[in-house]
């Protein structure tokens, strides 16, 4: 295809590509750039385009306020717990859906699809009431409960693809050699699934780590805020805005996510579209 493109067509395409690159990257660059600048450079009417002579003061400030560290702890706990529960629940469910044919299988898959489409705003009022009754508002467990339900459908869906990717014949061969069905699964299929589990786990991590809406609803107390909540209150109108500090905070939250995302994205794009690409 590319071969047949004429020279002007290619030049135009390249121009559009470069513009797209700049528009896509600039905000990310600007976050990093501003995080190194001090107050005077930030408040200069002429923007400082490259952080020459910048320092790490903003990062130091972020850590010194203490709120960041407390939010980091909450975020790590919620994310970790969500992953642990969601991955183990999703794993056994994915095995059921991909290795067995049973009545209700298709209905279960359809239900997953439908659930995935439910907007958080459609249910958070009653989730809030439920957690209030259970006295789980402002607790890691409470937020984890709603997060697990949020990531489960996608996790099951993706893991199912990975389990189906391991041919059942391999297990059968192991059973011929005298393994039980369970034994064959854990000795043959499970090790082959490790990369899939990691990729799905990373994606679940990104979702829980970034989530804002439900955290806003469940964690109403200041000392129980997750990182996204902490970052969003930084920009409160009443507080005079410390853009350098905000950008340092954003950088700290974004960098692990970007790295993880770049690692797993190739694997996950196919899962995201769930076969849509095949047309």
């Amino acid at each position, binding site marked *: 295809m590319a071969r047949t493109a004429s020279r002007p067509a290619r030049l135009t395409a390249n121009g559009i590509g*470069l513009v797209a690159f*700049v528009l896509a990257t600039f905000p990310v660059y600007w976050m990093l750039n501003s995080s190194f600048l001090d107050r005077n450079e930030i408040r200069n009417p002429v923007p400082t385009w490259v952080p020459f002579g910048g320092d790490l003061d903003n990062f130091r400030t972020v850590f010194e306020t203490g709120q960041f560290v407390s939010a980091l702890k909450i975020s790590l706990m919620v994310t970790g717990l969500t992953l642990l529960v969601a991955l183990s*629940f999703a794993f056994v469910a994915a095995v059921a859906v991909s290795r067995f044919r049973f009545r209700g299988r298709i209905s279960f898959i359809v239900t997953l699809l439908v659930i995935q489409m439910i907007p958080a*705003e459609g249910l958070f*009022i009653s989730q809030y009431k439920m957690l209030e009754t259970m006295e789980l508002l402002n607790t890691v467990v409470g937020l984890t409960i709603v997060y697990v339900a949020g990531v489960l459908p996608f996790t099951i869906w993706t893991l199912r693809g990975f389990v189906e990717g391991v041919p059942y014949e391999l297990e059968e061969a192991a059973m011929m050699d005298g393994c039980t069905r369970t034994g064959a699964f854990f000795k043959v299929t499970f090790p082959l699934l490790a990369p899939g589990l990691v990729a799905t786990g990373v994606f679940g991590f990104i979702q829980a780590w970034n989530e804002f809406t439900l955290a806003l609803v469940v964690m109403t107390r200041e000392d129980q805020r997750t990182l996204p909540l902490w970052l969003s209150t930084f*920009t409160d109108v009443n507080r005079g805005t410390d853009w350098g500090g905000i950008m340092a905070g954003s950088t700290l939250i974004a960098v692990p996510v970007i790295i993880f995302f770049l690692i797993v994205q190739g694997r996950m794009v196919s899962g995201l579209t769930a076969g*849509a690409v095949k*047309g």
Partner: protein
Amino acid sequence: MSERTDRARAVSLPYLLLTPAVLALCLALGYPLVRQVVLSFQEFGLAQQFGTPPEWVGLDNYRELLTDAYLWKVTLRTIVFCLVNAAVTMLIGVGLALVMRTMSTWVRLLTQTGLLLAWAMPVVASLTVWQWLFDTQYGVVNYVLSALGGDFEGHGWLLRPLSFFFVATVIVVWMSVPFVAFTVYAALTQLPGELLEASEIDGAGMLQRLRYVILPSIRPVLLVVGLLQVIWDLRVFTQIYILQQAGGSARETNLLGTYIYRLGIGGGDFGTSAAVAIFMLALTVVLTAPYVRAMLRQEREA
């Protein structure tokens, strides 16, 4: 173990494996859904928060809402915002995917890297950056527009609703284009080269090839991606909420999601907000049905 119990075990095993997931979903989504329907038929305000038993009011909440001009305004606003965002995202995303085929390899890799970065940015982090870019006093956008000759010194972008939604649209589109561009590009690379060559030999121009050959062949992908955009843009919450906190007027910029939040958790009127939420769920179901049907078709073919 007898053969019979063995078989019974084999039959019940998949259900056993599904149990933890199903229970979790019932607890965190199923029960709240039922409770929400109940709530939407009750008077549940501040008095009930402090212990007064909720009063059954039948369809009163719904009747009140359906005759409330503000809800219709918010609904209309939500739908327009959703369609505009989805359309702009699709246009830019599909356009980029098409153009990517003609780029030199190094430019294409550069473009794809940039898109990946934008895609990977956490929502809240990108919101703070975009607020900083559009900042009234020290924002780069005002600086650049002024340098280009515009009168943008000290321009407040979030003050007027239309300009507020413009900023929101820029952010939403920036975050959503990568998914569309990558997915459509992946579909394009699977088009058979002979098909394009044949149409070229037949003398089809670029636009004709696009209209009669390329777009029809990737139609299923376009439909699914477009539908997903509509569904996702219908529930834009974080962007609107955070921009409102940053200085937008909530009443003039509420979409359904933020309206529910401010009515219920902000204002304590759980009955009415539950009714709005049910309304929003119904809207989602209507929009989701064709997507689920398309996915099911693939499921059966697989």
